[in-house]
């Protein structure tokens, strides 16, 4: 086992309170300081506090955007209910399980993987250090396994625990060293190639969406707590304390989006943040915001549905409601970040589009993007800012809020501007904004709102293409399905089937020409998505945006897509 690896996937697990997640956080922070990329997913049981917890990490020399197919090592701080995670932490005969024999036998669900069991007296090692904690022993074992530099470990521990005082730091470092020493004796190293030491970012998708909101100029946020989206609200609440702006915790989801209507009507770039069940409550007001042309960004961090579903797990089943949820005909803009690194720019772009087109923009993130912590290259691309048209063409009797224009956009002065008073209304209205039952006015305004979207130049926002230009196979995906598709495509390409990934960022309005250009020359296209009913595939088929015979590979969460599963699906379909 002396040769170095490109990446190593590790799980640190234990019952609640043992600090498995903290150990994982320390590990990813240390890996970042040692020049590596990383990805960390947290698992926890259904209990609010306590229960089992696990940090799932992959550390490597190349950027990481997907859950690994298998894990190289499971470090079990104890076994209490860790077996419940067995389906989510695939192990095999090449994997290691590091555990304390005092905690009993390896649970059957985990042992049957055939992984090699390495027994170490974890509790005894922790007890040998004054103030030593079990999770720091586990952290040390992981650091030793992959060969992290002691300086990186030291720096990470200091950054994380420094606030608790020097004694805590010393104890953590000593426990980590003891873990390292104990594991070193086994000789079972899985050393990672040296990483390039340069500055990167470490953040979650939820935090990155928050940053994009601030960069876009959001000054008002109203939201109701909901998993897995709340962290965006909390992150913004803290940042806005210092940097200006307001976060209001609304009494319910409906209040939140209506507060956004009010603040945006007042001129403030505005955002609300939710997940599926909350989006369901907001749909009536989404229709209002579309009809009355009130800009706002609506973030939906998707989780498994319908109804309460599985709140802590990822799924992409809210596409239908994001595209169509509201009575009547209400065309809208739906954007989806294609990775954690893409979150800041796509969110910033969402704010600009909402302001420029005076319409709600849906931002479809998902739990996997939102709650995964990643080490990424610092994103450099920023969208060109766009502003709301506020200057009236005429004042007094000549001012018409919903004036019919070529590009569908009409001036939206905020209250305070003299001689432009208008009433925002969900009733069908005339150009003046006055309620009107006239068919001509109704149709003219429907067309105006559709024209805004049709005439707008979305530029490169539509999506990204990865992989060889001469690919014969294309995987078409959005959100967190893009990462595993990229890994799968690289493998297929290496195995002789040149494969590209077409990652859609703008889900509506569909940019047919750009999609067609991306798929030109491709013989086989498969839409890969994490929902049960192939919502993206149906949507694109309905828009006549897919080539004839385009296939669908759709399956719901909660299990994350892994590259091996996608490759296997493709090979199976070819064989069939």
């Amino acid at each position, binding site marked *: 086992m002396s040769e170095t690896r490109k990446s190593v996937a590790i799980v640190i697990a234990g019952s609640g309170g043992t600090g498995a997640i903290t150990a994982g956080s320390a590990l990813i922070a240390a890996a970042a300081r040692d020049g590596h990329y990383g990805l960390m997913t947290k698992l926890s049981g259904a209990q609010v506090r306590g229960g089992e917890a696990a940090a799932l990490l992959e550390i490597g020399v190349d950027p990481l955007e997907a859950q690994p197919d298998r894990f190289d090592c499971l470090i079990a701080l104890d076994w209490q209910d860790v077996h419940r995670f067995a389906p989510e932490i695939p192990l095999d005969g090449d994997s290691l399980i590091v555990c304390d024999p005092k905690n009993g036998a390896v649970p059957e669900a985990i042992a049957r993987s055939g992984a090699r069991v390495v027994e170490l007296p974890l509790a005894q090692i922790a007890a040998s250090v004054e103030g030593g904690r079990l999770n720091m022993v586990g952290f040390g074992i992981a650091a030793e396994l992959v060969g992290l530099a002691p300086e990186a470990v030291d720096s990470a521990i200091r950054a994380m625990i420094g606030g608790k005082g020097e004694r805590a730091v010393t104890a953590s470092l000593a426990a980590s060293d003891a873990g390292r020493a104990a594991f070193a004796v086994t000789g079972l190293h899985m050393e990672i190639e040296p990483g390039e030491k340069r500055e990167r*970012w470490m953040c979650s998708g939820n935090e990155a969406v928050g940053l994009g909101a601030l960069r876009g100029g959001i000054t008002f946020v109203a939201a109701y707590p909901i998993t897995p989206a709340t962290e965006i609200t909390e992150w913004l609440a803290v940042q806005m304390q210092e940097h200006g702006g307001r976060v209001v915790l609304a009494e319910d989801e409906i209040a939140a989006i209506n507060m956004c209507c009010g603040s945006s009507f007042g001129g403030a770039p505005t955002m609300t943040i939710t997940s599926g069940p909350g989006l369901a409550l907001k749909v009536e007001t989404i229709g209002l915001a579309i009809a009355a042309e009130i800009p706002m960004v609506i973030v939906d961090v998707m989780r498994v549905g319908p109804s309460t579903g599985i709140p802590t797990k990822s799924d992409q089943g809210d596409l239908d409601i994001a595209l169509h949820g509201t009575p009547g005909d209400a065309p809208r803009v739906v954007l989806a970040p294609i990775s954690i690194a893409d979150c800041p720019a796509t969110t910033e772009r969402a704010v600009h589009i909402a302001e420029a087109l005076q319409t709600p923009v849906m931002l479809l993130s998902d739990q996997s993007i939102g709650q995964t912590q990643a080490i990424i290259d610092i994103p450099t691309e920023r969208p060109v800012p766009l502003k709301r048209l506020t200057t009236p063409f005429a004042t007094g009797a000549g001012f018409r809020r919903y004036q019919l224009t070529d590009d569908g956009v009409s001036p939206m002065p905020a*209250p305070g501007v003299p001689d432009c008073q208008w009433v925002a209304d969900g009733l069908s209205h005339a150009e003046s904004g006055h309620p009107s039952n006239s068919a001509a006015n109704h149709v003219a305004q429907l067309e105006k709102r559709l024209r805004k979207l049709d005439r707008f130049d979305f530029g490169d926002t539509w999506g990204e293409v990865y992989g060889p230009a001469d690919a014969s196979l294309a995987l078409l995906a959005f959100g967190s399905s893009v990462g595993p598709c990229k890994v799968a495509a690289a493998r297929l390409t290496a195995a002789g089937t040149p494969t590209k990934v077409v990652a859609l960022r703008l889900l509506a309005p569909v940019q047919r020409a750009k999609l067609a250009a991306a798929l030109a020359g491709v013989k086989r296209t498969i839409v890969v998505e994490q929902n049960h009913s192939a919502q993206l595939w149906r949507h694109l088929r309905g828009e006549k945006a897919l080539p004839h015979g385009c296939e669908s590979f759709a399956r719901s969460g909660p299990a994350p897509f892994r590259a091996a599963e996608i490759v296997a699906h493709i090979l199976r379909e070819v064989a069939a």
Partner: protein
Amino acid sequence: MTIHEQPHACPQQLTLKDFKSSVEPIWCSGCGDFGVLQALQRALAELGRPPHEVVVVSGIGCSSRLPAYTTAYGFHGVHGRALPVATGLKLARPDLEVITVGGDGDGYSIGGNHFLHAARRNVDLTYIVMDNRVYGMTKGQPSPTTEADWDSDAAPGGTGVKPFSPLAIALAAGANFVARGFALDVKPLAAMIVEAVRHPGFSFLEILSPCITFRPEEMEWKKSVERGAIQPTSDRAQATATVLSDTEMATGIFFKGDRGSYRPAPTGHGDPEKIAAQFRIGGTAHMPAEEGGCCGD
């Protein structure tokens, strides 16, 4: 400079006409809401803020059509959600005068939760409810303030459900100003609206506004309203006792409190790039001492 930063215009001489729009109300003749509209227009004239600095926000229902009938800015949203719209607007634009209007179904039934929380939050808003104790726009169904035995197609023989007291609820939830007016007493009502608007925090005005189409018996309110029987107090418990023991026909200001309003927004003008720097890690650059939010358990 954005319009948010523009100083208020000095109060100027305005009249009711300055707040009267050209849009014809859809209301039935004899509707109490005409009186409320007129009282509001008078009050706004007296308050002296020009129409473009005033926003009238509403939900859905007969009375919620009111914003289009003034010359102020307006927001006619979805059913029951006027208060959240007004809250978001006032918090984003504290410089504006924000008046929220609506009916009993809109405010007490579908929007009941927002009524509680607007009172609790105590944002500097005025909320005028035109209570006719019936759903008028949908042609005569019982609302949360309709008498239990009022007969209708939707509830033959009555709902059998006791109506609630909006004033008691407003007091319990923390409203800072609580009053009851009568739609047809236009002058005193205008004075009451002026006082409500001037009072800081969440001011709640329950206005008895007869619907003579679906509740013709409410024409009798002209006689049964008890005028001038109420003295304002700053004692919430005393006001609540008065409200709970009255006939629900007494007009006047029941309560004027001094609760602190919702705290103002942080006013920093931060650079998002400083925030982005929190994400930086590794390399040879200075290591941040803390990684905000990145490493918690």
